[in-house]
């Protein structure tokens, strides 16, 4: 369950720097390196599959032998010999295929898992700034769509491709062994196939990509329309929305027709290659038998050889585009794993307390468009401060800088006397934790979600944290209590419940400084009150920096910073600011207007 947070208004679409994509050479090199991590498996699968394919070649000559024996009117008993060999070779082929396919699937799965593992590990350690430049959707689509594409290729296409390719190669060898002229005749089909394959792959890859996009758009439109059904009804938009859905469906269908036209023309051309090759092989058989250089059995064997090639050839050519798409997907994954990871010092001093001091902080999402100008803050350890101001003013950006998630363009931040930039990863997170506007419940048991914040937390720790944020009762009421599977595909939590979990994670992480930038918009007013009460309990005993949406939060804070247009325009205790009669006082007057008894 993820509600993407609002993109910072000034760093929005149109200026996206998508994550990089590796070049073809680099992609292949990365793949080769991963395959070569398993040299024995690679060699073993290559050898067994080669043997299986080689053994399959004896079928046609053995049938040819049966034909020859029958043609010469040999005793019926003599046929048993080649037939027993046929049966034996079938068993041998099956056994070798079993071994070879298993080995090659194993290799494929190991490489696939390595690709995925490396990507996830790397993505988790990328600087958040770099991810946000490309839009988090770019990273998500790589881990979902691209990994799915590669899995499909590794599981479905690759073993079949290798098997078929081996059979084709070896059949050509077998034909040539019967008589080199059979091999030459079969090769007549190759130009037609080569041209067809080129023609097909050039057209299919963009068409399939369009189809995936269209399917995604259709799915999205259905979710929008059906998910927003109440709004659609309220505003009488039924017919308009049905029209939108119909348009998306029509787009998908149009692309389906184009795919089918392409595929049917593709197989039509391959039929041409089949007829050319088969005619050539039969004619060659005719000439060779006529000239007495080949037996009828050999001619029959050659025809059977070639007819058995139809399937594998079609398979290989048809799978070319799956492999091509998988290669493109792999390039997108390798592009990310080649990015430099977040740099943090290895060791650092531990901050003495939760005092936060910032001076001269500056930040810009885009060069030349600063969103924060020379921010100075001095927050005593253990106090709670509120950041107040209109949306788009820079509160969220400041929260990210103070949490060390973004790196300031200028100025410095100290926590407990130690520069934030000099803290190692572990110390940093024990010092400062940020709850961002994003609401995400991790798929899996609820307890596992909480343990992300503190791996060693006991059940009692979890229970205490849940009680503190006011979540214990509803968690206990879940079907399996804290072991209930929540998040995507599991028990769905409300926005308020999800935010209570986020607060519980802070308690478990137990940092010196907690920075809270929660979105209460979706919580409704009663939900917001529940969360405010939980927040107060979570901040007890630590420094709290709260991006305040409701002024009750600000009035309860020790210090208030009013931020407007990237600058701190007012700061001080609530009462002082109200007395000063500035912008905050006006804000407070508006907030409390309806609250006074004599409004």
């Amino acid at each position: 369950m993820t509600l993407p947070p609002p993109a910072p208004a000034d760093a929005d679409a149109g200026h996206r720097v998508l994550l990089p994509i590796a070049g073809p050479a680099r992609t292949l090199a990365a793949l080769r390196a991963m395959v070569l991590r398993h040299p024995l498996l690679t060699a073993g699968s290559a050898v067994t599959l080669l043997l299986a394919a080689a053994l399959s070649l004896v079928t046609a000559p053995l049938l040819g032998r049966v034909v020859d024996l029958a043609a010469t009117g040999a005793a019926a008993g003599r046929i048993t010999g080649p037939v027993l060999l046929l049966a034996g070779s079938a068993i041998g082929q099956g056994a070798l295929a079993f071994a070879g396919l298993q080995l090659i699937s194993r290799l494929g799965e190991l490489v696939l898992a390595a690709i995925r593992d490396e990507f996830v590990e790397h993505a988790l350690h990328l600087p958040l700034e770099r991810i946000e430049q490309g839009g988090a959707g770019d990273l998500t689509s790589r881990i979902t769509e691209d990994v799915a594409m590669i899995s499909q290729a590794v599981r479905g296409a690759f073993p079949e491709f290798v098997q078929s390719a081996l059979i084709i190669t070896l059949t050509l060898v077998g034909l040539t062994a019967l008589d080199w002229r059979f091999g030459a005749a079969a090769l007549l089909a190759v130009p037609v196939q080569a041209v067809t394959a080129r023609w097909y792959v050039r057209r299919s890859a963009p068409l399939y990509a369009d189809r995936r996009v269209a399917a995604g758009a259709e799915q999205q439109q259905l979710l929008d329309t059906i998910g927003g059904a109440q709004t659609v009804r309220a505003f009488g938009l039924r017919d308009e929305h049905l029209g939108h859905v119909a348009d998306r469906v029509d787009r998908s269908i149009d692309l389906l027709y184009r795919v089918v036209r392409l595929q049917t023309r593709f197989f039509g051309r391959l039929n041409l290659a089949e007829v050319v090759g088969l005619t050539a092989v039969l004619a060659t058989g005719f000439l060779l038998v006529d000239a007495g250089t080949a037996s009828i059995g050999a001619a029959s064997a050659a025809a059977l050889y070639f007819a058995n090639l139809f399937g594998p050839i079609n398979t290989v050519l048809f799978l070319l585009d799956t492999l091509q798409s998988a290669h493109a997907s792999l390039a997108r994954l390798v592009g990310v794993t080649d990015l430099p990871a977040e740099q943090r010092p290895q060791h650092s001093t531990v901050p003495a307390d939760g005092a936060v001091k910032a001076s001269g902080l500056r930040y810009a999402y885009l060069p030349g468009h600063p969103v924060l100008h020379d921010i100075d803050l001095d927050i005593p350890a253990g106090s709670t401060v509120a950041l107040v101001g209109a949306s788009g003013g820079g509160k969220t950006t400041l929260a990210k800088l103070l949490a060390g998630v973004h790196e300031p363009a200028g100025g410095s931040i100290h926590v407990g006397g130690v520069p934030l930039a000099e803290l190692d990863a572990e110390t940093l997170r024990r010092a400062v934790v940020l709850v961002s506007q994003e609401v995400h419940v991790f798929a899996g048991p609820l307890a596992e979600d909480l343990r992300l914040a503190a791996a060693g937390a006991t059940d009692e720790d979890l229970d205490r944290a849940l009680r503190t944020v006011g979540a214990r009762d509803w968690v206990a009421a879940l079907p399996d209590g804290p072991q209930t599977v929540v998040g995507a595909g599991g028990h769905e939590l409300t926005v308020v419940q999800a935010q209570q979990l986020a607060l519980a994670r802070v308690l478990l992480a137990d940092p010196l400084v907690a920075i809270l930038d929660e979105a209460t918009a979706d919580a409704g007013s009663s939900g917001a009150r529940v969360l405010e009460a939980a927040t107060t309990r979570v901040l007890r005993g630590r420094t709290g920096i709260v991006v305040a949406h409701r002024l009750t939060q600000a009035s309860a804070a020790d210090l208030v910073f009013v931020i407007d247009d990237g600058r701190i325009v007012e700061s001080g205790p609530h009462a002082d600011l109200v007395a000063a009669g500035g912008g905050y006082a006006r804000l407070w007057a508006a907030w409390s207007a309806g609250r006074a008894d004599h409004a």
Partner: protein
Amino acid sequence: MNVDGGTLLRRSMLAHRGRIVASAALYTGHQAGEALVPVLIGVVIDRAVRTGDPAALGLWLAVLAATFVMLSLSWRFGTRVGTVGGARADRSLRLAVTATALDRRESTLLPGALVSIATGDARRTAMVNFQAPHGVAAVFGVAVASTALLVMSVPLGLLILLGTPPMLYVVKLLSAPLERRSADQQEQAAQAAGVAADLVQGIRVIKGIGAEHAAAARYRSISRASLIATLHTARAEAGYNGSVIVVNGLFLAVVALVGGRLAAAGDITVGQLVSAVGLAQFLLGPLGTFGEIIAAIAGGRASAARIAGVTGDRASSPTADPPAVLGRLRLRGTGGPGVRGVDLDVAAGELIGVVAEPVAAGTLLRILGRESDPTHGTVTVDDIDAEDLAPPAWRSVVLASPHDADLFDGSVEANIRAGRPGDITAAVAAAQVEQVAAVLPDGLATAVTGRGRSLSGGQRQRVALARALHADPAVLVLHDPTTAVDAVTEAAIAAGLRAARTGRTTVVLTTSPALLAAADRVVFLAGGVVAAEGSHADLLRTRPAYRELVLS
């Protein structure tokens, strides 16, 4: 009108019967051609290769080429016609499910489940239109091959015809445990990909609490378990493929043995032996198709039943012209979840605030928006009973906008204009959308995506409010329209709302003091009934329960 899955499937097929029949006829041509190829190879060997007759070679190669042209073109156009028949059926099912989802209130299914019915189940049902012609053609293919075999030799023909089904049955038995296993294991294998995607989606949360290592460790353990499950599946799959090779090969050996003996004895020709071997391989195709088609029809029927479950009790939505009303709203003993019985009169043009517990507020919003009917009591507007008006006609008079109202893809401006065309300036000003436009990259032309999730909560609420104000209904019902905006903006919205709704009836379900202070009158619900009425200031003074609910 209750329709079961079978009926729905039949109707979906009958609607496209012309294409199904045409496609079946074309596929039949293809199957017949495929069956003829091995026969012709045998004929070439008998008539040309053995005799050395070049004229016969030319003739039979020409026949072979003609067969290829026929089978290739039949397949091409059969596939195209069949695809259209399937796609058209798919389209109408998708739209029917969507229309039902839009027409029917109080769906018990979640949007995700409905979308999956509109896509997956519609596709599986429509797929039957595409698959059925294959089944017809497979019957013909088997018939052609059988005839050819029996003409050549009755014993060999019977061997192949009677031997193939048990062989396919053995293969099916071999694959059954694989299918059973792979369902669980695919799920486990998919888990690694799912967890990976989930962690990446929550990356900001992970970074915020510094859980990079914990997340990576969690992922690794799941990835390992997935890998083990996948390797088991891969092993089972390899075993299955290997067994199929063995079974096919042994069957071929038996055919060669019997055919070879018959040929050696002179009962059949050498060419016929070659044809028989080829036909034995060919028959695996169409006979295997039967199993797939039976599975496709069973799947299609189950999917059709799910679709029928959604669309079957589809309420016909009578279209009635919306009445012209002044906007006098009256509730008498109206009740529902959390609401015991509310009596309420709102004069035309009045702006009232209603303070209620969250459940009661939600119920009132749904009743006033005709999303659900009251369990008892009545709702009227200008003395017209809600029950006498179809929901769409009612909604064109009474607009109830929920606090989490969805926005749709399109520009901010297009969203505001959704309810009514025309100049949106006044609504934009009243709902303080100018501030929103000022910080968006393209102002009012900025694209909204992901049901409005590309905007912040406060921005989204203001755009949704502007849309409701611009729709300018006779009666407007709003629910918590300002929970995500700052205090100054909220005060401005309260003033803007008053001005924009002058002379029009407005009901605001809220606990926001700023909005309540702007109302002509506030109605306070407690325990599901009207507990007090008066101005916001009066209620604050006289009603501690009201005070607590509004000011906490």
